[in-house]
């Protein structure tokens, strides 16, 4: 598992937002939402929505006992000050130097940075969680071509195909999904990969 007891974790929009519903019981982590909340809990049933409690993706959320609310200056003070241990976020492109692009596709899409740039610069550990490809097109490159959200910031890339560490030597594959071959992984990745012979099979959590 990527989290340790006591970690303060920020989850970005998209794939990462499903994580709160899949935290193993007994593991005590604190989820931070950069929109001004610590101690986010699972999404509420529809009839229990509190319109003032939501996550940074705008989805309804709950507050765990011991949680708290604050404004955005305090929230990003916590982030910038290094008090968020782990940030998990999506990406359009990521590369073997740990560069991350997730705010625009030139000529096509402009999303903006939101809180991502602060999080990837200041969180102690940056995890990219995404589909390995965009409908078959690679998203992991030797060099990002889209404008960067952050340079040399990504520590780990987790996809549906592999668990990859960004190391000074390059992208080190630590685990491969059970149903994926080494060739399939290489074909789905533009970047050079370091794949040890004894690479582990990825553990899939419910």
């Amino acid at each position, binding site marked *: 598992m990527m989290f340790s007891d006591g970690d303060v974790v920020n989850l970005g929009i998209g794939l990462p937002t499903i994580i709160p519903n899949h935290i193993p019981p007994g593991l005590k982590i604190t989820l931070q939402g950069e*929109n001004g909340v610590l101690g986010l809990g699972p999404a509420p049933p529809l009839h229990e929505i509190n319109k003032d409690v939501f996550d940074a993706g705008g989805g309804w959320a709950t507050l765990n006992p011991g949680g708290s609310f604050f404004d955005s200056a305090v929230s990003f003070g916590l982030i910038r000050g290094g008090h968020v241990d782990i940030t998990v976020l999506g990406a359009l492109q990521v590369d073997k130097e740990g560069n991350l692009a997730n705010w625009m596709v030139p000529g096509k899409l402009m999303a903006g940075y939101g809180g991502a740039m602060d999080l990837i610069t200041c969180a102690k550990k940056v995890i990219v969680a995404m589909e390995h490809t965009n409908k078959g097109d690679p998203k992991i490159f030797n060099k990002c071509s889209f404008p960067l959200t952050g340079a040399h910031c990504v520590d780990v890339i987790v996809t549906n195909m592999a668990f990859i560490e960004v190391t000074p030597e390059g992208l080190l594959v630590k685990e491969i999904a059970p149903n994926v071959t080494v060739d399939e992984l290489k074909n789905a990745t533009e970047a050079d990969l370091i794949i040890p012979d004894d690479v582990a099979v990825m553990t899939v959590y419910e």
Partner: protein
Amino acid sequence: MGKLMTLLEAVAPIKDGDTILVGGFGPMGYPGRVMRTILKQTELKDLFFIANAANQNYLPALEKMLMTRSRGMIATFTRPSKAAEKLYNEGKLELIPQGTFSERIRAGGAGIPAFYTPVGFGTAVEEGKPTIEIDGVKYLMEKAIKADVALIKAAVVDLDGNCFMTGCTKNFGTLMPAAAKYTVVEAEKLVKPGKIDPELVTVPGILIDAIVKVGA
């Protein structure tokens, strides 16, 4: 005169060309009624908006004014927003990181003209900004944001203007009044002074100029 007024009275002091801070994280904390009033009942133009996001689905009045009555915008996230894309292509949209956005507004209200942050190196955010190295780490200088007007929303407001923003609706609205010369707050609930717990006041009334009652 008290601070409680109609929507039209509240927006009357806003002028062509004004710089306007708009509260809200998406629709939460966004002063939609005041924004609609400016759009539908005034001819104000050349406005410069400073808001966390542009979003044509959730913030339609802002979107329309960005498209036709705005000379520019500072934002952190703009999806989806055709108006923001248009401003961006015209070089009129300054996209900045959300923490820098928050801190620049706080600085504007707190008399800090500029500060340093590690956020933005190796990206477009870095361009043209002074840098400094402290203890071996490089930082960008970012300047305070100040504005003519702040438009915000609060769950509970008292007649002195004290605001209590509940839960995650605090976001940027707590920071904006101090950075603006004139502030309008939309009150979902209006109470007498003293009825908000002094520990829960998120914006003190001394920073609020106009209160409009809008319902929840």
